[in-house]
Structures are given as structure tokens and as C-alpha cells.
């Protein structure tokens, strides 16, 4: 028995298979927890299975990776798993974040309905994410990738069966992205003659010419998972009423890890991604558009969840902009920014969830002065907010500076877009922080007093904030110890940014945002209205009105295109139906009626018809005979 267990653990495939199967088992256990102590049981499962997953992931990372295969028996599909490089780094990182969000979820659902189903789907999502990170075969990657879509759809339906718009939207947009990824994967595998990522990485494909289809489609698939434009619009929809832990886990961290991991693999391993190439431009434009318009929408939000959800979109833009440059500094910056974002964005969502848990609302009109009632939450919020705003010395600052550096080298326009994004990010967090924590104390209707959040929610928030501080104060740890070796990048990006001018410009932009906030606050009469002078500025007001009416929502475009196509199909179908239902029966009955006219009892008419018939037959025989004689 002991020997068998040792043999099982010794085989590298088994820990990897366990990392897919174990979470599913954990989810089932959490789901089956019933009775009064179900909250405690779920917490125990979250801790135990989350920690076990983290141990497996760390053992793979520290062991230098592993690989192994199980045959699936279907053409070209082999369950080949391989952990190395960036995948090996992402596994424990995802495991750590999962542990935090699982604890948070178990605490959040302590007295709420739907916790069992949520925990089940959350755990299955981890299994899928682990599978996607470990997959060496592109088909297997797709398998796990689309599995994440299933759990996403299920999670969005929990407790919201009557309002399924977000779930349907997510399914449509992410489903489209996943199908595009399928095409990209198949085209890539065809071109490379292999679906194994490690084999392709040995001889990367050219991203131009025949490789363009595969590369572009795969990148679109990665963007779809990360929540970049144009696959983003389900996120604000979900932010309105999805459970708070969902926002922390999915748009906050796990989906970003998957999307950016794949984008990085495409750029660094699968394709020769030359800086300045059309493909690089494509990714940078997608990144710049996402970061700019995402944060522009965040700036005008008056609900904490929606505001944060637009930031979840815009931050992906920075990551894509960095990775899209194809420069080592940009790629390292993009990956570092993804890790930072996962920390501070999850932290912000957890803090928002804590506020919602205590006050019952996320509407900023009803909140204010929370720093006194919830000091620890406020402290965590500010650490994360300073990080996302990129205040010098924070982790967000270091990753943004790397991206700015790469963006400037790739084109001034990208750098300007990124700076504009930084301005709006800072402005919107000044507004959010001011409105929720600093304005005069307000209590939502029906609330007598507000207390600090529960321990199960505070611990995740504090942990995330502490990690932000660690990654900022000692950026050599993430950059030099973790990311550099994982990317095989020998450059040293750690320490204070080399380009002092860029730092000065970034700082100036932050000061400008502060000045704008002070001005807007005075003009609008409060922190919540601090961005109104931008929102309602001539020209900009109209653009925002269009966006708020959904006219700029790609989902609506997709549906309009599909409905237009559908109307054209209905027109064609009308013709086909007319042919079967009217034309053919009409022809048959019409012929019958015509022939009936000949049936009038006149012998001479029948005789003429008979003679004509005989004459025809004779003619046919005659022609046939002539034909035989002729040659």
C-alpha cells in the first residue's frame, strides 16, 4: 500500500492530475455540506483543499516543473501536461489567490443562500484553471478553457434565475471568444504539424503570413478570457448583482491569470512575435483601446461594484499593451502587472464586499465616512487603491512604469493613451475613496450602526494588501526571482525605474489627477461629483450618453448582426417555403386541372391524342434506329 502511494506520488503525472481532480472533490464536499455547521464545514474545505492545491502547485514549481501524458484515444488529443516556465509560476500564484478567495467566499456565504453551488463551481473552476495552465497539448488547453466558460455561466446564474442577462451575455461573448480560440488553436496546430506547445516552442511559428490567422485568433481567445474589449461587456452587467465573491474571484483574478498566461505563451513561446510587426500593433491597439475606454467608463460610475468592474477591464488593457509590444521589458511588465492587478483588484473587490456585507449597499450615494466605522477595511482599500493608481513606491507603480517604458518605445500614441488611463484611474479612485470613506458619515436606510467586517472577510483583505506592499517594497522578489526566470528573461527590471523622466511624467499625471479631483469636488459639491465636470463636458457628454444607452456595447453589435443575418435568412426561408407549400402544389393541381379540360367525352379528341402519342413513339424509334445506322 505504502509503496503504491509512493509510486503514485513519484510519477509526475499524478500531482498534475490531482490538481485537476482534487478541486472537484473539494467542491463536491463543500456543496454537500448541510445543516447548521455548513458554514464551518465549507470554510474547512476551502482551507484544506485550497492549501493542498497550493502545496501541489508549489511542489511542482520548486521541483522545476514536470511533464507527463495520458492517452485520450482520440485523434491528436492526448492529455499531455507539462509544467515549466510561466505555467509553473502561475500555478502557485493562482493557488494562493484561490485560497484567499475561497476563504472569502466561505465567509461571505456563511448565512446566505447558494453557497453550496457557488463553492462547487468555484472549486471546479480551479480544476479547470489548473488544467489550462498545465496543458501542453493545445486541444487539452481548449478543453479546460471552455470548461471555465461552463462554470462561469453557472456562477452567474446562482440566485439570479430571474435576471439572467449577465449570464447569457457572458456565455455569448466568452463563448464567441472561445470558438475563435478553437480556430486559432487548430490553425496553429496544423501549421506547426503538432498540437504540443513544447514542440511548437522549440520551433516557434511566424506570426505573419500563413501564421497570422492562428496567432490572431489565439490572441483573441486569450483576450476574451482576460475580459478585454470587445469581449468585456458582461463584466459590468454581472457587477450589478452577482455575489461579491464572484467578482473577486473571476473578473478580479482567476480569469485574468488564464487570459494573460495564454497571451504570454503565444507571444513568447508559440509565435515569433516581432516588436513593431502588424500582430504586435494589433495587440497594442486592443490594449490601448481597452485601457482607455474601460477607465473612461469607470470614471463616471456611481456604484462601487460597477466602478471596480470597469477597472477590471481597463487594467487588462495595460497588460495587453505591455505584452503586445513584444519587448522583454513590456512582457515582464505585463505579467508583473497581471500579478499586481490580481492582488489589488481582488483586494478592492473584497473590501467592496465587506462594505456591502455591513451596509447592504454599494451605491455611493448612500455611503460615506466609512473610515471610522471600518478602519481595517479602509486601510486595506487605500493600500490597494494607491497600488492601482500607480503611486510611486507601490507595486502597481513598478509594473506600470515597465509598461510605459515599452509603450513609449513602441509608439508615442500608446504611451499617451496609457498616461491618460493613469490619470483617469487615479481620478476615479480619489472619487471612490473620497465618497465612501471620507465624506460625511451616512447610513443607508434601515441601518443603525455599521461595524468592521467579519474576520473571514478581513483576513483575505489584509493578506492581499500585505502582498501588495511586499511586491512594492521588494519588487526584486516578483521581478527578479519569479518572473524573470519564468520568462527566461535575463534583463534586470527590478529596482527603481531606469527612466527618471517617465517617473516624473507619471508623478505629474497623478498630481494633475489630484488637482482635478480638488477642482471637481469644489465644483460638484462633493467627492462623488468630482468627475462630473469631465462627464458632462461638451462633446464628452454625448459620447457617454451613447455608451450608457448600450450603443457602444459589442454584445449589442453582435446581437444586431446576428439578428440582421437572421432576418435575411428568414427572407430566403420564405422563398423556400413558398416553393414547397405554394409553387409545387400549385403546379401539380394546375396541371391536373388543365388536363381535366381534355376529359370531355369527345371520341375524336381522344383519338387525336392517341394518334399523336403513337406518332411520338414511332418518331423516337425512328430516331434511335437512324442513330444506330449513322456511324
Amino acid at each position, binding site marked *: 500500500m505504502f509503496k503504491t502511494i509512493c509510486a503514485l506520488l513519484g510519477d509526475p503525472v499524478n500531482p498534475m492530475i490531482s490538481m485537476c481532480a482534487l478541486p472537484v472533490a473539494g467542491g463536491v464536499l463543500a456543496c454537500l455540506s448541510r445543516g447548521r455547521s455548513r458554514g464551518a464545514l465549507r470554510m474547512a474545505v476551502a482551507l484544506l483543499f485550497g492549501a493542498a492545491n497550493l502545496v501541489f502547485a508549489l511542489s511542482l514549481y520548486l521541483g522545476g516543473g514536470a511533464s507527463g501524458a495520458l*492517452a*485520450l*484515444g*482520440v*485523434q*491528436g*488529443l492526448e492529455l499531455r501536461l507539462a509544467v515549466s516556465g510561466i505555467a509553473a509560476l502561475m500555478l502557485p500564484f493562482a493557488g494562493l489567490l484561490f485560497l484567499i478567495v475561497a476563504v472569502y467566499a466561505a465567509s461571505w456565504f456563511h448565512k446566505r443562500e447558494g453557497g453550496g453551488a457557488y463553492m462547487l463551481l468555484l472549486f471546479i473552476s480551479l480544476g479547470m484553471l489548473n488544467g489550462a495552465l498545465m496543458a501542453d497539448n493545445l*486541444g487539452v488547453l*481548449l*478543453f*479546460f478553457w*471552455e*470548461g471555465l*466558460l*461552463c462554470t462561469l455561466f453557472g456562477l452567474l*446564474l446562482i440566485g439570479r*434565475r*430571474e*435576471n*439572467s442577462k449577465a*449570464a*447569457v451575455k457572458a*456565455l*455569448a461573448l466568452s*463563448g*464567441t471568444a472561445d*470558438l*475563435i480560440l*478553437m*480556430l486559432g488553436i*487548430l*490553425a496553429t*496546430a*496544423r501549421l506547426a504539424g503538432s498540437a504540443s506547445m513544447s514542440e511548437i516552442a522549440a520551433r516557434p511559428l511566424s506570426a505573419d503570413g500563413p501564421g497570422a*490567422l492562428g496567432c490572431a485568433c489565439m490572441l483573441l481567445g486569450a483576450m476574451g478570457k482576460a475580459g478585454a474589449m470587445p469581449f468585456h461587456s458582461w463584466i459590468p452587467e454581472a457587477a450589478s448583482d452577482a455575489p461579491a465573491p464572484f467578482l473577486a474571484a473571476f473578473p478580479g483574478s482567476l480569469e485574468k491569470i488564464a487570459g494573460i498566461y495564454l497571451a504570454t505563451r503565444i507571444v513568447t513561446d508559440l509565435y515569433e512575435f516581432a516588436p513593431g510587426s502588424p500582430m504586435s500593433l494589433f495587440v497594442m491597439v486592443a490594449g490601448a483601446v481597452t485601457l482607455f475606454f474601460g477607465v473612461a467608463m469607470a470614471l463616471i460610475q456611481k456604484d462601487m461594484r460597477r466602478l471596480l468592474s470597469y477597472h477590471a477591464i481597463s487594467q487588462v488593457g495595460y497588460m495587453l499593451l505591455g505584452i503586445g509590444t513584444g519587448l522583454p521589458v513590456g512582457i515582464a511588465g505585463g505579467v508583473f502587472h497581471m500579478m499586481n492587478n490580481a492582488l489589488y483588484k481582488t483586494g478592492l473587490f473584497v473590501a467592496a464586499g465587506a462594505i456591502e456585507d455591513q451596509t447592504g449597499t454599494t451605491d455611493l450615494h448612500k455611503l460615506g465616512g466609512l473610515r471610522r466605522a471600518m478602519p481595517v477595511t479602509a486601510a486595506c482599500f487605500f493600500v490597494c487603491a494607491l497600488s492601482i493608481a500607480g503611486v510611486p513606491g507601490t507595486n502597481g507603480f513598478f509594473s506600470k512604469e515597465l509598461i510605459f517604458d515599452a509603450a513609449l518605445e513602441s509608439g508615442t500614441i500608446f504611451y499617451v493613451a496609457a498616461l491618460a488611463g493613469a490619470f483617469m484611474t487615479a481620478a476615479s479612485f480619489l472619487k471612490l475613496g473620497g465618497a465612501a470613506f471620507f465624506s460625511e458619515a451616512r447610513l443607508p436606510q434601515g441601518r443603525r450602526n455599521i461595524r468592521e467586517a467579519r474576520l473571514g472577510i478581513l483576513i483575505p483583505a489584509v493578506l492581499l494588501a500585505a502582498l501588495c506592499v511586499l511586491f512594492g517594497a521588494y519588487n526584486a522578489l516578483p521581478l527578479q526571482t519569479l518572473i524573470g526566470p519564468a520568462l527566461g528573461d535575463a534583463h534586470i527590471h527590478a529596482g527603481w525605474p531606469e527612466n527618471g523622466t517617465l517617473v516624473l511624467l507619471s508623478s505629474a499625471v497623478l498630481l494633475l489627477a489630484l488637482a482635478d479631483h480638488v477642482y471637481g469636488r469644489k465644483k460638484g459639491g462633493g467627492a462623488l461629483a468630482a468627475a462630473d465636470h469631465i462627464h458632462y463636458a461638451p462633446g464628452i457628454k454625448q459620447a457617454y450618453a451613447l455608451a450608457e444607452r448600450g450603443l457602444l456595447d459589442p454584445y449589442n453589435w*453582435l*446581437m444586431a448582426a*446576428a*439578428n440582421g*443575418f*437572421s*432576418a*435575411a*435568412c*428568414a427572407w*430566403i*426561408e420564405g422563398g*423556400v*417555403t413558398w*416553393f*414547397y*407549400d405554394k409553387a409545387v402544389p400549385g403546379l401539380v393541381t394546375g396541371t391536373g386541372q388543365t388536363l381535366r379540360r381534355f376529359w370531355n367525352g369527345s371520341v375524336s379528341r381522344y383519338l387525336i391524342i392517341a394518334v399523336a402519342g403513337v406518332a411520338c413513339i414511332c418518331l423516337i424509334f425512328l430516331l434511335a434506329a437512324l442513330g444506330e445506322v449513322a456511324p
Partner: protein
Amino acid sequence: MNGWIPVLCVLVPLLGACALPFAGKRSPKIRNALALALVAAAFAFSLASLPAALAGEPLAVRVKLPLGLSFGLVADALAVFMALTSSLVAAVIVIYSFGYVREYDNQNEYYMMVVLFIGAMMGLVHTTNLIFLYMFWELSAVCCWRLIGFYREEIAVARANKAYFVTVAGALVMLAGFLGIYAQTGTFDLEAMKGFPLPAWAVVLILFGILSKSATFPLHSWLPDAGVAPSPVTSLLHAAVLVKIGVFAYARLFVGTFVIPEIFALAVPVIAALSALLSAGLALRANDIKRVIAYSTVSQLAFILLGISSGTEEGFVGGLLYILAHAVAKGGLFLCAGIVEHSVHTKDITKMGGLAKRFPLTAIAFALCAASVMGIPPFSGFFAKYLVIDGMLAAGHPLLAAVFIIGAVMTVLYLARLFAKVFLGPPAFPDAKEGTSGMVASVVALAALALLLGLAINLPGSLAALIWEAM
């Protein structure tokens, strides 16, 4: 002795079906049990033929007849694959029917036609002779005609006639093609004709029959109209079994037997692409629950045809797996639609909503089957779609592969719309009751099967690969 297994597989349901009306006169219970036993027997005989087919020595019976004719049944891997798929889904549908049709007239005829149809299907997949293939083909059309007109209302009869005329007209054109081949080869025996290069005109004539049976644009119009039939019939004929006859014939004739001109390796996928997109567009617009699923069937059949006609191993194996995955999942969807329609007495999805609360098991089964049709892992539909599109790329048609991706996106859209309209949103029928336990168990079984087949895809996958090798 073993050679008689395929004969029994065909004759037991064919002859047994004739006994069902008599059994029904004695006791409906006996008739129902017998009907299930006959379909189960077909499944059991197919299963018994599997080891020999896997070993590459298929069980076969051949009888020489005058005028160069012959009668033969062979249980090769393709025949066994089709027979297993059809009889398995049919058995679930028969169990479902016990609850569904119990309050209607003409039940004796209903069960007789269902079992006769399965017999015809068994004959069709096992036969080695073009004329017998045609005869079983027409027998299936007759069963289909009676079953679509089951309710005997004017509209049902008219739609049944339409289905009959379109498929029979197609079959007659196909027969002309068969006779043309006979004129050139002097035989109807498929094994004797293996490798015979078929002229383009003969391919076009036979394709007419295939496309009409498999409801491919523009010969598809009868299929959405046939939704007037009882739901188990729609499921059996228009999702699981009947419509697969056409694609089976394509595989048997154009991949396994004849050599066809190169042009069809492009022409048929183009027709399939057109059919897939058009019907997906229509599914997005339809408001009749069964019409949406029927248009979806037209669309998915085009995917199957695409795979089978791609001329590559990946595509062919994907196409075969698609037949299986689609039979199970789409059969399940139609049966779920039946439970809904049977309970709320409407097919209009704009009047439905919130049924997930009243019909939790049906809603879950529907969602799982829909996920399989959408091609989401780990369901069997995922592997099928993946391989079909891979096959298209392997055949050097990236543009067609992209078109099919658009078709797949539309599949996601219309199935999500259907699920949301029927099962989500504010409850429209707060007092609706889920069907009988047999009906619910049937849909749950099919949903579970869709999932299990995905998890154990190597079993049907290796059989499909074997079929390709034997071709």
C-alpha cells in the same frame, strides 16, 4: 451461426413491430414492454456484433438472388456504430413515450411505427445492396409519414405529406442514380463496386436523396414543419435517427464504396456551410421551441456532413462522433421540449419563462444537452466539433472552417436564448408540473450519456478511427 446476428438485428424489430398492434389489443402494458424489448434486442444484437467488427472480421450473411441481385447484411464497424447509436437513443425514447403518448389515440400504430422504423434503420445500416438500401430508406419514410401525422389534425397530415413527398422525391432521384450505376456496373452489390469511380451526374442524383433525408438546405423545409409530431417522434426521427440516414449513406457510399470526383470535396462542404449558417440564423429567430431545435438540427447536420465529406481522417472521425453526440444531445433537447410543451400546452417561447424552478431536472438536462450541442467540454459534442473543424483545416479550407466557427457562435447564441426564454426569467407558469418520472428519467439519462460519452470519448473515438481505417 454468428452470421445470423445481423439478420436477427434487422428481422426482430421488423417482424416484431407487426405483432405490436395485436399485443396492444390484449394489453397496452404488454405492448409497451414488447416495444421496448424489441428495440433493446436490436441494441443487444448490435452489441453482440461489436467484437467481430472491432477484430476486423465483421459478421455477415450473403444470399445470391437471380438477375445479378444479391441480399446481404454485414455488421461492419460503421454499421455497428450506427446501429448502436440509433437503438440506444431509440430505447430511451420508447421509455419516454410510455408517459407521453398514453393519453392519445392510435397508440398501437405509434409503437408499431416506431419499432418498424428502427427495424428499417437496422436494415439500412447493415445492408450491402443498393436496392435494399433504397427499400429500407423508403420504409423509413413511410414510418416517418405516419408518425408525423400522429395527431391526425389537418395541419399535422399536411406536414406529414410534405415530409413524405420531399424525402420520397429525393429518394426517387437517388434511385435513378442507383439504376444508372447498375447500368454501368451490372450489380447492386456494394462490395463488388468498391473503388468504382462514380460519374458526377450519379453523385448529384444520389446527393439529392441524401440531402433531402438529412434535411440540408434547400431540401430542409420539411424538418422544421414536422414539429407538429409528438415530441418523442420529433426526437427519434428528426434528431436522433432518421436525419442521420443521409449522412450515413454519404459515408457508406461516397467514402466507403465509390470514388467520387474531386470537385465534391469542395462542393459538399460549401453546401453544408450554407445550410449551417442559414438554419442557425433561422433558429435565432424562431419562437416555437421545437422549430428552434429543428433548425438547430439542420445546422448541426451540416456540421456532420462537413466532417464526413472533408476527406480527412480527423474530419471523418469527428463527423461520426458528431452523429453520436448529436443523437444523444439533440434527442435529449427534443424530449425536454416535449416535457415543457406537454405541461404548459404551448410551444411559444415568448409565453414561457422561469420554468427552471418548476422543472429543475428538465432544466439541468436541457442545459447539459445544450452544452454538448454548443460543443463545450467535457461533453461529447466538444470533441466532435473540434475534430470536424480540424478536418476542414487539414483539408486545406481555412475559410470554410472560419464559416463554421461563425455557425458555432450562432449555435451558442440561439441555444442560450432558448434556455433563457424557457427556463430563466420571471415564472410564467407557477403551477406547471414536470412530466412523469419515466419522462424525466429519460432526459436525465440522455444528459448523463452526453457527459459520459465525453469523459469516455476514447471508446467511440477508437471505433470511429477503426471505421476510417476500414474505409
